């Protein structure tokens, strides 16, 4: 209820790097009412919100969604009430096209400078006007080192008939077809029909080996040893590894998807000031580290990244050449969907 705005004793802001000359920014009102955050579940450390509430004397409600589209549909329909949402990269593009994001008022986010340069000015938000990066990760291969003779280094692993029934890939067209595009050295955002046709051939060849198309829940089967290798995110792999240290993560040499989820303020937000405070808050090194320690994913916050219990190093220049962000495919989505339907139902 009625959170009285109490100016934060924020640490002195380091100079924002790579920010163009300051434009006149609007003044924001005080922190009012509750802060409503709408994000993926289990994606925030358990102490993050309580500490924020204590410090800023502002109640936070956290609601969760399970797909970007669910969140977009609600925003698109005009169901406001959320102050912060957490879209994945391509979803930012969609939100931008639909004009569903508020512009950030930078002077209220002095910690913005803590963001590592490789996560600023991304393809989704080149001007850094709308987003504050939250967590990043890579989609690679999680495997049981005790069950595989050699550590995998290629998507070709899933074409190996010897592993028939012991491997899984993610149940997501972007990750799945994307992997096969990368396998042939193509962009995972390709809409070129011949490239896609080739990816389909590979995907179908892999399908016979796969035990299932399955995403995060494969962890239990990796831990149990039903599955030897699975296409998976690095953070989830780390969570599974906590249960069974035979589990390792590899990024195929052909390349893979890198992603970075961000926080944005949707149109219709009521408590914009508190949202800014929250954005600033999570950019504190210790807060960012706490979040990443909880999720197992990397922190785009450079200072936080250095404090992680299990370091998730930023990709090297070399690696960045093969890692690629998933971008919105626009009209190409339909083509991909048709392809995915064909793969699934053959």
């Amino acid at each position, binding site marked *: 209820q009625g959170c009285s705005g109490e100016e934060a004793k924020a640490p002195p802001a380091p100079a924002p790097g790579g920010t163009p000359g300051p434009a006149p920014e609007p003044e924001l009102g005080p922190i009012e009412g509750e802060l409503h955050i709408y994000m993926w579940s289990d994606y925030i450390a358990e102490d993050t919100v309580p500490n924020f509430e204590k410090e800023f004397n502002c109640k936070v409600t956290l609601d969760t969604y399970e797909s970007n589209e*669910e969140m977009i549909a609600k925003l698109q329909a005009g169901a406001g009430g*959320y102050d912060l949402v957490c879209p994945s990269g391509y979803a930012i593009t969609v939100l931008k096209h639909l004009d569903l994001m508020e512009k950030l008022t930078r002077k209220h986010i002095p910690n913005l400078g803590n963001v590592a340069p490789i996560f600023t000015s991304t393809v989704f938000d080149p001007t850094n006007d709308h987003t504050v990066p939250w967590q990043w990760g890579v989609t690679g291969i999680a495997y049981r080192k005790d069950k595989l003779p050699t550590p995998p280094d290629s998507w070709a692993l899933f074409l190996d008939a010897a592993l028939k029934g012991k491997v899984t890939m993610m149940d997501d067209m972007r990750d799945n077809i994307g992997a096969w595009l990368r396998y042939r050295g193509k962009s995972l955002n390709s809409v070129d029909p011949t490239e896609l046709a080739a990816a389909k051939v590979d995907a179908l060849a892999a399908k016979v080996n796969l035990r299932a198309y399955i995403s*995060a829940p494969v962890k239990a089967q990796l831990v*149990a040893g039903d599955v030897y290798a699975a296409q998976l995110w690095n953070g989830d792999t780390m969570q599974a590894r906590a249960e*069974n240290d035979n589990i390792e993560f590899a990024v195929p040499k052909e390349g893979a998807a890198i992603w970075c989820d961000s926080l944005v303020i949707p149109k219709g937000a009521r408590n914009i000031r508190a949202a800014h405070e929250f954005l600033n808050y999570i950019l504190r090194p210790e807060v960012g580290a706490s979040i990443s320690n909880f999720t197992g994913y990397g922190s785009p916050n450079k200072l936080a990244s250095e404090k992680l219990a299990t370091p998730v190093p930023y990709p090297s220049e070399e690696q960045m050449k093969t890692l690629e962000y998933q971008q919105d495919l626009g009209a190409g989505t339909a083509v991909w969907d048709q392809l995915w339907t064909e793969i699934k139902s053959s």
Partner: protein
Amino acid sequence: MAGRLPRWLVAITVAVYAFLHAPLLVLVVFSFNDSKFSAAWEGFTFQWYARLLERDDILDSLWVSLEVGLISTVVSTLLGTLLALGLARHRFRGRAAMESLLYVPIVTPEIVCGISLLIFFMFLKNVLHIPVVLGVPTIIIAHVAFNISFVTVVVRSRLEGMDRNLEEAAMILGADEFTAFWRVTVPQLWPGILSGALLAFTMSFDDYVITSLVTGPGSSTLPIVVYGMVRKNIEPSINAISTIILVVTALLIYASDRLSKPTALKP
């Protein structure tokens, strides 16, 4: 006719109950398992129950779910039963059409139902300027909308071929239509109403897709929280809360079954 049931029938029944309850048993057992991934038995622990105390979101959402479940069940059972009554007891033009319309909510894919309701509510709010706030009321509206049909279909099947004589007897004894309905029809229909209500509550209590679309800030139901947690991995505290729900309902049911003895006519 206290005819005993043939042994094979009892065997099938026991097998089906075992089929239905085996996963529950697993779930209960793993709520005491000292492993985050339910992969194998790692040892006994109460930690997941302890953790529930910290997870306000699970408990909050449980209350929301119960509130939504109970209210929507009562409303949809009432409306559905009346609808069934109208369909079974009256002949009017377009009855078959009306009845097949009942199946629309059953055939409509959840996502279509959810999105259409979301659009509809926003239409009310943004175009007609009716102050609709997404939250518990909209969830209840949605749940009633898709539960009515289930209740109606079930109750309708019970009404089929039921004797009208009893209602007539009630009416000649001075009960008007309302009283006759309440005192005579409802008790006769009771197994149907109970079945319908149970299905309605179950669907409401377990619905994710539609609820997630018509819910608003701060009114997550249990499935929304659970789906979120499960997306990554099923944490055993979910097993713990499920176990608690099961045990509590089982106890409540048992107690109410014991207590509900027919009342004698006493001064």
